[in-house]
């Protein structure tokens, strides 16, 4: 089914400059795979060489971090919104 993925500012150059991309998926993993298939340049910015989500990349299904759900196996429904947000941190 189609669901929307919100693309953060720094990843837009690798996603056709789009802020919202529609993907077809039954699970979070399928949604991310479809996203990377549509925009292959995104792949290395989302995943490590081992194919795992990079440590500083957070993926939220609506308001929940997928790391606290069933990660890639988390089922999605048509009204869901998947958000990608790189982490923001630092200090002196």
């Amino acid at each position: 089914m189609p669901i929307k993925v919100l693309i953060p500012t720094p990843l837009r150059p690798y996603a056709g400059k789009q802020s919202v991309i529609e993907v077809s998926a039954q699970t979070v993993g399928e949604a991310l795979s479809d996203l990377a298939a549509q925009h292959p340049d995104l792949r290395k910015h989302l995943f490590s060489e081992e194919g795992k989500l990079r440590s500083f990349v957070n993926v939220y299904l609506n308001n929940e971090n997928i790391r606290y759900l069933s990660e890639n196996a988390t089922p999605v429904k048509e009204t869901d919104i998947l958000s990608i947000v790189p982490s923001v941190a630092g200090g002196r």
Partner: protein
Amino acid sequence: MALRIPRALYDQLRQHGEATYPHECCGVLVGEFDEAGGKVVKAAVQCGNTRTDSPQNRYHIAPSELVRIQREALLAGQDIVGFYHSHPDHPAQWSSTDLDEAHWTGCSYVITSVEKGRAVLTNSFLLLGEEGEKRLEDELYELSAE
């Protein structure tokens, strides 16, 4: 000019650093990218610093806050264009930690030095390059009336 900030928002983010002193403050700059590659700030959204283990020299914004701010910005036809934080009793210069933890290429990282509770200098830095070869460069900013 690379970054344009309304004076009221500039004052607001500096005051945030004074209010949280001696801890670091942090927040998100929401606005628009212009055709010339510059950025216009429309809102400075205050966030909580989740680094309660070391708030005097570290900051971290909860991803859940970023998700909400990004979603609301997109609905309003705007974008996340940068972030701000303070350096209590430390120069307004990016640190190696700031660079290591910066992942929003093309966005501004605004840093305010707060000395003995008073905001002193505010500088902006632009994150460029990709992971592994990223860098923060000095970024000019302009204060606007609105």
